[in-house]
């Protein structure tokens, strides 16, 4: 290709047009953020005030976080559930992925088919028996039960298995000749080689768990155990017309994910593109 000198005008025009379209995707978030800074009576002033004429940011956020409704508690619940689910799910998936790709064992084929079949089952088709099971074994309405529900992701197994298959079998064989057993090989050879993939999966799992609304809705009852999405909804129904507060809660709910996403942006986008994965 020839060397490019200066600005490609066609490209610039498309960029500007695309920027205009992208506003459509960002505007609701900008509105959310701006509204969370406003005093309530300014929320629906029209034309929309993109810069609040009266700032009420500190009071709004203080009210949401430390007012009648303890947002910090729900935050803690979400952090706890999301981190533990992520860790357990990544561990279980990585172990199974290694087992299915690097160990040649008798029933391996059949067991993998079982896992493959479960991948096609829509989560909602099994909610009722899961609910009954949970009520009977004492996992209903506690965080451990919720964490277990997100910890056995077949998707993670598939994703990581693809990467373990990329680890050369010679590495494994020569380590075996040197007397290493599978846990040792897994931990010090195979896992470090697929670390980026595990990280990608972990970020995705964290985002999905943080945003999960359906499982907490069905499997939690006690208010003090609620995660952010449930708390958010309850807050909305309680605060009724106080939209500035609701938006402050919404911003608080999205903010940590935004941070995770911006930090892990490359892995998230690559992971999604690579596995074509969906929560």
């Amino acid at each position, binding site marked *: 290709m020839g060397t490019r000198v200066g600005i490609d005008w066609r*490209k610039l025009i*498309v*960029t500007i047009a*695309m920027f205009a379209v*992208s506003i459509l*995707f960002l505007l609701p*978030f900008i*509105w959310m953020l701006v509204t969370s800074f406003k005093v309530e009576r300014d929320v*629906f002033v*029209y*034309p*929309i005030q993109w810069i609040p004429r009266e700032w009420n940011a500190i009071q709004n956020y203080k009210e949401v976080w430390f007012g009648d409704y303890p947002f910090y508690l729900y935050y803690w619940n979400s952090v706890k559930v999301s981190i533990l689910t992520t860790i357990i799910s990544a561990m279980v998936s990585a*172990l*199974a992925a*290694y*087992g*299915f790709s690097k*160990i*040649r*064992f*008798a029933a391996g*084929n059949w*067991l993998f088919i079982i896992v*493959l079949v*479960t991948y*096609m*089952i*829509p989560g*909602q*088709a*099994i*909610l*009722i*028996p*899961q*609910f*009954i099971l949970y009520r009977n074994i004492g996992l209903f309405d506690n965080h451990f039960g919720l964490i*277990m529900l997100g910890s*056995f992701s*077949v998707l993670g197994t*598939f994703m990581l298995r693809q990467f373990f298959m990329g680890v050369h079998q010679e590495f494994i064989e020569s380590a075996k000749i040197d007397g290493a057993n599978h846990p040792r090989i897994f931990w010090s050879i195979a896992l470090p080689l697929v670390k980026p993939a595990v990280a990608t999966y972990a970020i995705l799992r964290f*985002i999905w768990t*943080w*945003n999960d*609304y*359906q499982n907490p*809705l*069905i499997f939690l009852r006690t208010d003090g155990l609620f995660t*952010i*999405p449930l708390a*958010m909804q309850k807050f*909305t129904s309680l605060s009724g017309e106080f939209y500035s507060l*609701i938006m402050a809660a919404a911003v608080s*709910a999205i903010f940590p*994910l*935004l941070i995770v*996403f911006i930090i892990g942006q490359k892995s998230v*986008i690559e992971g999604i*593109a690579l596995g074509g994965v*969906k929560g």
Partner: protein
Amino acid sequence: MAQTMETMKKPGAQPTREDKSRGSLQRGENLWGIAFVSPMLIGVIILVLFPILATLVLGFADWNFVQGWDGIQWVGFQNFRQLLEDDMFIKSVRNNILFLLTVPVYMVISMTLAILIDRFVYMKGYFKVAYFMPYISNIVAVAVVWQVLFQPSYGPINEILRTLGMSNPPKWIADPNFALISIMLISIWISIGFNLIIYIAGLQSIPKDLYEAADIDGANGWTKFRRITLPLLSPTSFFLLVTGIISTFKVFDIIAVMTQGGPIGSTTMMVWYLYDTAFVNLKVGYASSIAAVLFGFVMLITLGQWAAQKKWVNY
């Protein structure tokens, strides 16, 4: 998925005649194999496999949570017959089918945006993040914002429409005729980011020399799109079509947060109706039959996908 099926055949194909030491080696491998996969396997069996069987069995029962185990009555196909005459269920299935329309719409938009972002813009990174924001955002927070934006009398969207001269803008999610369309629009808005990312990955895997060769032959942009981009993206499109269709059958969060199936049942969908029947009305047997139908739909699509893959997709 196809790749996983092929590579599956390798392990386990062990020769049966081995000397003693190889035999004990293999026994060791068997034990380690089981040990590595068993946490996942046990979890999946207890939390997925057993429940799906239970769903299929409970579909033939008439049972209420509060009755206890003794209250189960086996009623054969009665639940399924009842479903065929249940207006709310039929409405749910109809809405699910209408919802399928979102899939081609967001696929076309995403493909267009992906091509523009991949080839014709500066600051690619910004665009990827901007369009991806709705996908990573908490659905409840997003739904609440849209609820306010769509507010009929003083919401910003209708204020803008009134300014533009529309004297009687629609009431959106409060209007039975517009509620489903409003939800579909929001769903399209959310889905574009994910599809866009997959399309960009698909575009990047198309060899650049194909376009260079086409340039030498004097092909214009449209021809290149028709003859190179579109066919070589067909595996991506096919994948997105199938996952998109399956995901429309799973729509729940947005309905639960924004409309609860209303107004007057205009936005009820299969999973919402399942939830409402099981966890609000506590009719476990009947809800299980809905779950079984849902499972059937998703299975049909998945099996159809395997059959169609070879035929439609240009590799």
